[in-house]
């Protein structure tokens, strides 16, 4: 061993990159994308609702439609860019408490962050001509990668 560094990830990128990370993450948790215009207003008022803002994020302004809506078992998760440019997640659900929605939302955001970091890392390694020689995912969802210089 020579050095160990621990890094807190920053989500900085355009909406397409964020969308790719969100899509991969939500699919791994059984959520499916829905049309954002479907009776959202009618259902929102009857639901519990909580919002989580990702502090370490900066989503670039690119057009108007920067929103992804996914659902699972009556829980709706809406990812969007807030006015300050941060990534925001709104969790809504009739059968879960606000605390349960927040916990689920934090898990979702963790997966999104993990996917974002994974793809960024793979790109960085490629640019440095480093090869992935082993990759695995543990039961705790930790991704482990061994890399060797070219």
């Amino acid at each position, binding site marked *: *061993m*020579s*050095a*160990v*560094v*621990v*890094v*807190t*990830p*920053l989500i900085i990128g355009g909406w397409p990159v964020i969308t790719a990370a969100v899509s991969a993450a939500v699919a791994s948790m059984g959520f499916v994308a829905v049309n954002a215009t479907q009776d959202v207003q009618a259902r929102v008022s009857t639901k519990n609702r909580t919002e989580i803002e990702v502090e*370490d994020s900066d989503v670039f302004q690119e057009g108007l439609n920067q929103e992804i809506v996914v659902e699972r078992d009556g829980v709706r998760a809406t990812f969007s860019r807030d006015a300050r440019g941060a990534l925001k997640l709104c969790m809504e659900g009739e059968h879960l408490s606000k605390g349960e929605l927040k916990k689920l939302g934090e*898990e979702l955001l*963790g*997966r*999104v*962050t*993990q996917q*974002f*970091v*994974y793809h*960024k*890392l793979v790109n*960085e390694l490629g640019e*440095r001509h*480093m090869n992935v*020689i082993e990759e695995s995912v543990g039961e*705790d*969802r*930790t*991704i*482990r*990668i*061994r*890399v*060797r*210089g070219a």
Partner: protein
Amino acid sequence: MAQEELEIEIDATGKVTVTTKGIKGPACLDVVKALAQALGREDALELTPEYYEAHITGQASAKQHQGR
């Protein structure tokens, strides 16, 4: 010379841990710091015996040269 490797872990919250293997001396810092900068904010850095091994060897060699 040992094969240079990195072991990288991305936990379920996205936190990243990068460990160098077989990269002796300050060169290992260049690699991990560049990756850290690309991915986010460096939270902690630990230098392990292998880092100092090459550094000390280099200093000893320099002293020998100076003594001649």
